[in-house]
């Protein structure tokens, strides 16, 4: 045992092998045991799962194969998690400079000057990613066992989910861009399959298609960036690319222009996968998938792949100031736009979707100002609290028998106490309340946006406003869902119940992580040691060095000075968050409840009371309503009309162009011959008289 543990890195491949085994086993089970269930023609009820694992189906005896699946799928992920933890523990025992382990599995492509192996790379950056992916992934698998317990296609669901885990781990563990791309495509495919999981819903299958198509635009950028890297560096392995940067800079091959081209193309890929302006449109629609999928793929893991890619290529990004600026601006813009669109959503999951887009914006903002470590830190804490919030919302939806409209909830606190408390912790974390995970990571980003060489007070201001908005809409969600009077249907209210343990235990674990997860990176200004930043330092110092070599003027990168400004800004961001919470409290706790209650009891009295509130109405009409209206307008104009119109418009234009192009195919041979003749005349004419 000791000898096996002493070189656990030789077993790195197990992290991929366990989910793969899950894929195979669940695939076989799905094929053998579930096939008859999947046949609409055979009359098996597709009607009884109008989504969301309806809790009130009959209580049949669980078939044995479902128990097996419920054991295999999370079990495999747990095994992968254990291997990941052991590997990372061993990594911590190594000296900081030597913390890069590459394990070559087999040679993949070796021809024409290209040599790519299927190899895994464990270093501080990928170690954070695999811990998050396997850890949060395991919790979500456990949760899914409960959540999907009434789903006929149980094994198929876990087949997809394990396939996703396998692809995602390939993405983060691969040692080259090519392998990252393989994982990148793989997670895209799984995301597509899982969004469209309830394909009988029309919206689900169109949402799946939209996600896939938008992602292709991003992939196009990534692919081109990869070609450029390959032909200028002669390799696609991370370690080789990073090692070659100085020599290529000296020989003049790697100019700022080239670095800008490569990194901009990469960023196009990142905007697609990580839902940034202008390619974010698919993420809110992706909420059509089952809620655990939203938590796993569209919050905690896959959508952060873009951030991972940018951080992974930090040395290249540091060489391209223009790209850095673009990344920062797009990140900040996405953070504020998405946050303001979150204000007016009524669907509980859509609020969280826009919130995810907004938080991803923060991560890109961090990368754009050169604080890659802070970006990855926020990636981690966000994975904790956003997975928690999504799973909590799933628990709410479960309790509400599938209802997602927050306007039809309220007062759930009493019925689902665990869900309420865990979600409340998650909300405090995302709002940036001091002491919780989100505070440390968000504050780090805000501070760096202000103080870094690439940052500016303007970026800080935008991000701070976005933070206040976040606090506002998250507390709106909490108040509308858990507080106030019940607005539930009577029928639904009878069935409201707390979720089973398989669902609440992951919630509690994630809540604990949302509290403690940030303590790894307490900044020096608050007396912490920022262990997280130091852990990642070996990955990011290369980038700083390269940038210094390029500019040659800037002194050593600014380590945190004890700037009093840091405390002032910290206080300001907390104040903004509290202000947001206060507005939400006023609007959704103090105000709207009273007229509703009174109106219920006495319609005539309601009018009078209503007039009494006239001053408040005016105030609300003047200020608060404007803000909400603006949010709705923004959402309508920008998201639904503008971006969607562009996406749909392009698709429509191309398609109608296709219909026109096809029309030249008249079916008459003479016309075909004419086209050949014309082509021949053009070619020969060009060749002779060019």
């Amino acid at each position, binding site marked *: 045992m000791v000898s096996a543990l002493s070189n656990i890195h030789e077993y790195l491949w197990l992290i991929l092998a366990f989910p793969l085994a899950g894929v195979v086993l669940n695939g076989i089970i799905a094929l053998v045991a579930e096939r008859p269930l999947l046949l609409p023609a055979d009359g098996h009820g597709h009607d009884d799962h109008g989504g969301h694992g309806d809790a009130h189906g009959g209580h049949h005896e669980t078939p044995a194969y479902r128990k097996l699946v419920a054991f295999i799928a999370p079990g495999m992920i747990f095994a992968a998690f254990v291997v990941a933890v052991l590997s990372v523990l061993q990594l911590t025992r190594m000296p900081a400079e030597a913390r890069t382990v590459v394990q070559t599995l087999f040679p993949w492509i070796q021809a024409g000057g290209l040599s790519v192996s299927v190899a895994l790379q464990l270093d501080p950056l990928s170690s954070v990613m695999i811990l998050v992916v396997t850890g949060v992934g395991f919790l979500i698998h456990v949760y899914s066992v409960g959540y999907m317990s009434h789903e006929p296609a149980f094994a198929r669901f876990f087949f997809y989910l394990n396939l996703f885990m396998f692809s995602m781990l390939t993405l983060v563990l691969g040692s080259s861009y090519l392998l990252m791309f393989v994982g990148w495509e793989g997670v895209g495919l799984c995301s597509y399959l899982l969004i469209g999981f309830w394909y009988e819903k029309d919206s689900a299958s169109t949402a799946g298609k939209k996600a896939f198509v938008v992602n292709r635009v991003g992939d196009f950028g990534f692919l081109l960036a990869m070609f450029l890297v390959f032909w200028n560096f002669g390799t696609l392995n991370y370690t080789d690319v990073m090692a070659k940067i100085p020599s290529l800079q000296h020989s003049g091959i790697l100019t700022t222009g080239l670095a800008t081209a490569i990194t901009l193309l990469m960023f196009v890929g990142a905007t697609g996968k990580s839902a940034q302006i202008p390619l974010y449109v698919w993420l809110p629609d992706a909420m059509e998938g089952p809620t655990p999928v939203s938590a796993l793929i569209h919050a905690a893991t896959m959508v952060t792949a873009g951030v991972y890619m940018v951080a992974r290529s930090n040395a290249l990004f540091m060489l391209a100031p223009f790209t850095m600026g673009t990344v920062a601006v797009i990140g900040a813009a996405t953070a504020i736009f998405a946050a303001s669109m979150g204000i007016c959503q009524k669907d509980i999951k859509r609020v969280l979707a826009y919130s995810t887009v907004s938080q991803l914006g923060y991560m890109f903002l961090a990368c754009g100002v050169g604080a890659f470590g802070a970006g990855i830190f926020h990636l981690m804490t966000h994975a904790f609290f956003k997975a928690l919030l999504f799973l909590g919302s799933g628990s709410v939806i479960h309790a509400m028998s599938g209802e997602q409209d927050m306007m039809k909830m309220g007062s759930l606190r009493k019925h689902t106490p665990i869900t309420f408390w865990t979600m409340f912790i998650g909300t405090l974390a995302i709002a940036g309340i001091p002491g919780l995970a989100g505070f440390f990571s968000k504050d780090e980003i805000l501070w760096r946006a202000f103080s870094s060489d690439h940052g500016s007070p303007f970026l800080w201001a935008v991000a701070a406003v976005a933070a206040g908005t976040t606090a506002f809409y998250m507390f709106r969600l909490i108040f509308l869902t858990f507080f106030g009077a019940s607005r539930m249907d009577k029928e639904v209210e009878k069935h409201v119940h707390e979720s089973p343990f398989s669902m609440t235990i992951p919630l509690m674990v994630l809540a604990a992580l949302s509290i403690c997860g940030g303590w790894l990176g307490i900044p020096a200004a608050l007396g912490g040691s920022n262990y997280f930043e130091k852990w990642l330092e070996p990955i990011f110092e290369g980038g700083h060095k390269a940038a210094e070599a390029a500019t040659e003027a800037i002194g050593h990168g600014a380590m945190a000075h004890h700037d009093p400004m840091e405390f002032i800004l910290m206080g300001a961001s907390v104040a903004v968050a509290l202000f947001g919470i206060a507005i939400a409290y006023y609007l959704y706790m103090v105000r709207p409840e009273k007229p509703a209650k009174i109106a219920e009891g006495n319609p005539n009295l309601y009018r009078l009371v209503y007039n009494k509130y006239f001053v408040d109405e005016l105030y609300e009409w003047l200020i608060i309503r404007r803000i909400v209206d603006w949010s709705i307008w923004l959402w309508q104009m920008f998201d639904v009309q503008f971006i969607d119109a562009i996406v749909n418009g392009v698709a429509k234009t191309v398609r109608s162009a296709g219909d026109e192009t*096809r*029309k030249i*195919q*008249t*079916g*008459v*041979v*003479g016309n075909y*011959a*004419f086209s050949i*003749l014309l082509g021949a005349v053009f070619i020969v004419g060009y060749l002779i008289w060019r």
Partner: protein
Amino acid sequence: MMGPSAYLILSGILFAIGAIGVVARKNALIILMSVELMLNGVNVAFVAVGSYMGDPTGGIFAFMVMTVAAAEAAVGLSILIAIYRLKETIDITELSVLKW
């Protein structure tokens, strides 16, 4: 001895007439004949150049072309017959079920 350029021009004219025939005619049989005309244009070029250079390749090539043209004509005519049996026309404008 006269250079091959005059023959080449002749071959070009034959080829062009054939090509225009293919494009402009509607009767499949005449289109087939126009293609044969194009091939004859090719043959003229081959034979003329071959004999000018005293090289047998040109002549041999022309024979090959003729052989192939014969085989092609046989297949082509049988296709036309099959079409005529089904549709009682060989007007190409009426044979356009497959399109777009």
